């Protein structure tokens, strides 16, 4: 993929392996002109068809990116574009889900999934997030930064999904412009405990942060000789699986 080396890895969590159920995470990446689209979705463990919902979500994130293809509209245009992209993704997801429900049955909640998507055209990055997946960016000289933290809603028990009634109020989307971003890591919450650290926000309250050594995940794959299988092995290692029984997905993108 021109300009970026993308390393996507998703492994089935130990609980789903034990139960014989499928991986309910999904990921996708796409090059579209000078755009690079990256997406991760985490199907809700409690929803019967969430793996399908997650797949619909990442496909919508990729398909909607055509909206952003074309001549650079300038900063104000890019900001408006971020909002229009979010609307297009949600609209595509809803229409496709409605059609699927008409054809195969089920209810919206059966397809519950989060979504995190980034459309990269350096130095501009459009992001869209619903739910508890998270985005870490690597900044040249400043290291890793948790740019989009996981959103667990009002409490950890109230994660908002693409299928939730209150979804539109929980959508986070925006535009980042930074020529010094050298890496992106889109992660499902299955890896949260293993890769993020507890810290304090500016007001002294508890918050999550990307520790300095998070950089290693991205630096490793700046070397084209590094095998994606090494990350897969890591996500299935005993200490990672001990951290969470959930499915684990990381989509890493490193400026080539």
């Amino acid at each position, binding site marked *: 993929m021109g300009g970026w080396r993308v390393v996507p890895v998703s492994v089935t*969590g130990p609980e789903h392996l034990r139960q014989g159920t499928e991986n309910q995470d999904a990921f996708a990446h796409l090059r579209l002109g000078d755009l690079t689209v990256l997406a991760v979705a985490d199907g809700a463990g*409690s929803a019967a068809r969430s793996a399908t919902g997650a797949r619909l979500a990442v496909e919508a994130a990729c398909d909607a990116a055509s909206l952003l293809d074309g001549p650079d509209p300038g900063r104000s245009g890019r900001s408006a574009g971020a909002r229009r992209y979010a609307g297009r993704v949600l609209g595509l997801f809803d229409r496709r889900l409605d059609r699927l429900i008409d054809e195969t049955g089920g209810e919206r909640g059966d397809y519950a999934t989060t979504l995190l998507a980034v459309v990269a055209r350096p130095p501009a990055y459009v992001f869209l997030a619903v739910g508890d997946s998270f985005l870490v960016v690597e900044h040249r000289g400043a290291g890793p930064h948790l740019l989009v933290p996981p959103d667990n809603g009002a409490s*950890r*028990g109230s*994660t908002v999904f693409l299928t939730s009634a209150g979804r539109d109020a929980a959508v986070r989307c925006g535009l980042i412009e930074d020529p010094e971003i050298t890496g992106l890591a889109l992660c499902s919450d299955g890896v949260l*405990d293993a890769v993020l*650290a507890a810290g304090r926000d500016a007001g002294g309250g*508890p918050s999550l942060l990307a520790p300095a050594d998070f950089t290693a995940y991205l630096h490793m794959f700046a070397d084209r000789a590094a095998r994606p299988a090494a990350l897969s092995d*890591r996500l299935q*290692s005993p200490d990672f699986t001990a951290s969470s029984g959930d499915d684990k997905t990381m989509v890493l993108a490193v400026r080539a």
Partner: protein
Amino acid sequence: MTTPAVGFPPVQSSKSRLLVTLVVDTSSSMARDDAIGQLNTALRTWREDLHADNHLRHITEIAVVTFGAGGVRVVDPTGHERAGEPYAPITRFQPPTLRAGGYSPMVKGIKDGLRIMDERRQALAREGVQMAYTPLVFLLTDGAPSDDQGKPCDLWRSLAPELRRQEAEQGLMFFAFGVRGADAKVLEALAPDKHYQAEGTDFASVLGAVRQSIDRVVRSTEGVRTDEMASRLKKRRSAMDWITDHARGEA
């Protein structure tokens, strides 16, 4: 943090917890047939069993409250004879050797168990650490509640609705497990759908039921957070079914 694979950073420490609180009867009746000895042995086996589970070892903290010898005591879970933190991670949990004596102030023991659990939950929240699963409180007893003077008391009657309220509002699950001699009426009132009584003084079976209950909560709700879990659990088989399965050896 654990040792990293080559090239990757170590896994970060856990930012979510499972709190398990044991409220244990150590009154003088526990000396009969060496029930207290069986309990001590069963606790050590239980600890090893939990320690062997990667996920539970990563997230679980345990506290032990006793009622009987010495009144109501929050025992140092690391096995030291000093007042330490009420909760310890499994890796530091060393079941203390309990001794039997005194009366059975069960209700105060349960209330103290609920209190330390709530304090720990709040302390963790201040550190940004959330509950991975609904906190679990287990009563283990061979008798019936008494007051501080050893007289039977019925304070448990008013405790029962308080437990239901806390289960609904505070997000906890309360289990009442007993061996021979335990007052079945009290167990049922305190935990209508989560009580179990073993034969004889088989504390190994009782601690097995505790482990089974922990397992079922964790396994049945993986990836589902606490608020959502409450509604899911209502749709699932009751905890009593799990315990019955365990007692029958079918689980």
